[in-house]
């Protein structure tokens, strides 16, 4: 088979799996698991074959136009360069791991079949986005991901948190998608095509008339999808979905779509210096703010969610300094270790029966209950904190190196200001990242107090996947030398200055957190805390749903807990209160958008009920009175009716006669 055929099959197989899963789920539930896992495995294998054949060389392009549109043509096009080939492997790998993990995690879930089919559909949409060479086709995948995310976040729709989170995720991402769509049209209007290759050729020859406008419009959609400030608020709430969904959608793939999109169209963005500075500021605010917020969260998954936002900030930062190689390198490394972190967090929540770090810090020997999750999560947290020689070190250093490169003015067409913004915020975030990674590790695994509950071993399907994902977190750094052949050819090896600086601040962050933890941990005994699931022996998915539901009744807040033993509280000081609620951004949105809309709705309701309806009722009054009067004649006595008929006939005849005689 040709490479093109194989590449078409890659998104098609999960799609067929999803369709079959949705159709057969009820009639043949035995097929649900194979239908979920096998297409993902096949897609992964085919993506690997496509990547090997493509080999980082000439991009594979293929296009077919189904029907003429009259103006700008929309084509089913493939454009597979080194970026697409590698990102597709990441998507396939994470999707496969998540599907295998879900067979254990949701094994008693009544809605498993539809869940697995939606995950397959989501995988297919992401692969479509990755391979598509036409922006309209890309948009189709982009929106399918949005709706799948809505359904999967709301998987536990029995809980109010999940319902609210799914609607919020959908609305906030759509808020970005509207300018995104307009931006796509503006881009097509300027360049006369939706094909990525033609657009890039057109941009290279300077054919873009409104680069800043287009770049900013597209940026809005990217900010929504990739959870960048100010549209990031949906991602922490989306943790109300099941853990595998968080791992697949909200860590490794969907949120990466925005970054990947900019990486594909980077020349459009570098054509406008203003857009790059906006991107850099956005990345800097996102990075630093989310890292501070992560330090104050109590829900283990919300810590990881804010961490995801921050790491995506690194990627957009790399793009802001014009180095898409570094951005996609970090995307790949982050996709692997963040998926691992989420899946391991799912195991921990299942074992501990709670998602609260405060409650975990009061359990002794939790790490002995889940040794696999403990070791793999340690690896992944080291990668997250960018400690050499784990994968995160190399990818983060390549980002910082690119920023430094731009800051000192070596990168053409990138303003030095963008470089400085990204470099400084990147270093600050590296410090904070190490701090919250250390806090998570200490609180989750080094608790004191009562013995952790024993629910036996976790399913093999869940543990084996953790080790599979630990491999790239350990060893992906080795690819640093090979990757430039697949990307733009720019060197990705860490430079000495940024490597020493980055590792240094990370170590400082870790050590300071450790010191704070030693200081505060003595207070843990004083305040007993606990938000623990009602059925700790049940299936992972159920335990998690119950843990999320119990967090707010136990602590009064879905995000934070009043725990004096939390080192984050000591480190953040007065900032903790604000960081715990995401710096009141939700409150700002509520004041700016939600309340005006509600007030307008109240006004419209008043106008409709009290003003419009009054006229309608008034118009109805006269017929109603007439009707009441006429109704009195309805006595039920037939002879009365006939008498009235006779009287009427006589009157009419007399009248007709009078008229006839008067006329004559």
């Amino acid at each position, binding site marked *: 088979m040709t490479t093109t055929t194989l590449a078409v099959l890659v998104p098609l197989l999960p799609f067929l799996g999803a369709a079959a899963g949705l159709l057969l789920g009820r009639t043949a539930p035995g097929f649900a698991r194979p239908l979920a896992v096998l297409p993902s495995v096949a897609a992964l294998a085919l993506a690997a074959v496509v990547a090997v054949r493509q080999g980082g060389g000439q991009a594979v392009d293929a296009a077919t136009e189904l029907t003429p549109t009259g103006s700008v043509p929309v084509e089913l096009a493939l454009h597979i360069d080194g970026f697409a080939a590698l990102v597709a492997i990441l998507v396939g790998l994470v999707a496969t791991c998540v599907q295998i993990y879900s067979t254990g995690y949701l094994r008693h879930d009544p809605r498993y079949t539809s869940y697995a089919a939606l995950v397959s559909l989501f995988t297919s949409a992401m692969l479509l986005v990755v391979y598509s060479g036409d922006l309209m086709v890309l948009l189709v995948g982009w929106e399918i991901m949005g709706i799948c995310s809505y359904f999967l976040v709301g998987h536990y729709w029995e809980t109010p948190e999940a319902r609210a989170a799914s609607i919020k995720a959908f609305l906030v991402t759509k808020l970005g998608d509207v300018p995104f769509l307009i931006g796509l049209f503006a881009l097509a209007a300027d360049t006369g095509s939706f094909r990525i290759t033609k657009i890039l050729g057109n941009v290279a020859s300077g054919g873009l008339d409104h680069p800043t406008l287009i770049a900013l419009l597209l940026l809005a959609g990217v900010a929504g999808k990739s959870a960048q400030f100010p549209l990031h608020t949906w991602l922490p709430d989306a943790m109300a979905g099941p853990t595998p969904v968080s791992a697949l959608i909200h860590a490794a793939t969907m949120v990466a779509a925005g970054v990947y999109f900019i990486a594909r169209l980077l020349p459009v963005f570098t054509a406008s210096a203003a857009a790059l500075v906006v991107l850099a500021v956005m990345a800097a605010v996102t990075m630093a703010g989310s890292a501070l917020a992560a330090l104050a969260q109590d829900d283990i998954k919300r810590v990881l969610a804010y961490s995801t936002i921050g790491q995506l900030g690194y990627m957009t930062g790399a793009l802001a300094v014009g180095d898409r190689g570094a951005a996609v390198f970090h995307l790949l490394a982050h996709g692997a270790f963040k998926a691992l972190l989420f899946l391991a967090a799912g195991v921990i929540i299942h074992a501990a029966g709670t998602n609260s770090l405060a409650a975990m810090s009061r359990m002794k020997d939790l790490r002995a209950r889940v040794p696999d999750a403990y070791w793999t999560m340690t690896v992944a947290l080291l990668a997250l904190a960018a400690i050499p020689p784990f994968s995160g070190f190399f990818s983060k250093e390549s980002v910082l190196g690119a920023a430094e490169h731009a800051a000192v003015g070596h990168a053409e067409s990138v303003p030095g200001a963008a470089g400085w913004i990204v470099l400084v915020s990147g270093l600050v975030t590296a410090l904070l990242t190490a701090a919250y990674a250390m806090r998570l590790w200490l609180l989750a695994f080094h608790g004191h107090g009562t013995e952790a509950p024993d629910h036996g071993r976790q399913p093999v399907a869940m543990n084996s996947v953790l080790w599979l994902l630990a491999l790239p977190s350990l060893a992906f750094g080795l690819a640093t030398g090979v990757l430039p052949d697949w990307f733009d050819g720019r060197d990705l090896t860490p430079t000495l200055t940024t490597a020493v600086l980055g590792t240094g601040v990370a170590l400082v962050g870790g050590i300071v957190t450790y010191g704070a933890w030693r200081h505060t941990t003595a207070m843990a005994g004083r305040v007993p805390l606990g938000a623990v699931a009602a059925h700790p022996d049940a299936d992972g998915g159920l335990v998690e749903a119950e843990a999320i539901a119990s967090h707010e009744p136990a602590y009064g807040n879905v995000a934070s807990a009043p725990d004096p033993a939390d080192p984050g509280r000591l480190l953040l000081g007065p900032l903790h209160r604000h960081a715990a609620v995401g710096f009141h951004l939700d409150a700002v949105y509520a004041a700016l958008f939600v309340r005006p809309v509600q007030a307008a709705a109240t006004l419209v309701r008043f106008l409709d009920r009290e003003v419009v309806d009054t006229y309608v009722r008034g118009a109805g009054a006269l017929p109603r009175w007439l009707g*009441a009067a006429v*109704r*009195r004649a*309805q*006595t*039920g*006595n*037939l*002879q009365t009716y*006939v*008498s009235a008929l*006779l009287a009427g006939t006589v009157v009419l005849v007399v009248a007709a006669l009078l008229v006839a005689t008067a006329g004559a």
Partner: protein
Amino acid sequence: MHLAYPAVLSALLFATGLYGVLARRNAILVLMSVELMLNAVNLNLVAFDVWLSKTARDTLHSGQALTLFTIAIAAAEIGIGLAIVLAVHRNRGTADIDRLRDTAEPGNDDPDDDSDDDSDGSGSTRSEPAEKAEATA
């Protein structure tokens, strides 16, 4: 024969029928009165048909044809009507039109209905034969 005789006769018949329809209480008598009215019309039709054919304006005798038509329809109508009256009588035990007021608008006509019913009810409760005698009279 002059046209006036059958015309007057049919007018009288029609008036009698009309009076019966309006004033009788027994449903069967009302149906009989309807028959009287129909036959008054039939008489008119035949008389005018003869009169018109004498003046040779109408040679098709459409009046007589229509009369046959009316007789057939009247037979069907009286069959159905009597069946309905029979069914009503079996159900309600009465064929008094004044007491069959189920189609009355509920609520607003209760007072005058009651007064009607009272007068009827006193009549019917006094003696069954008396009412029948009144109805057949």
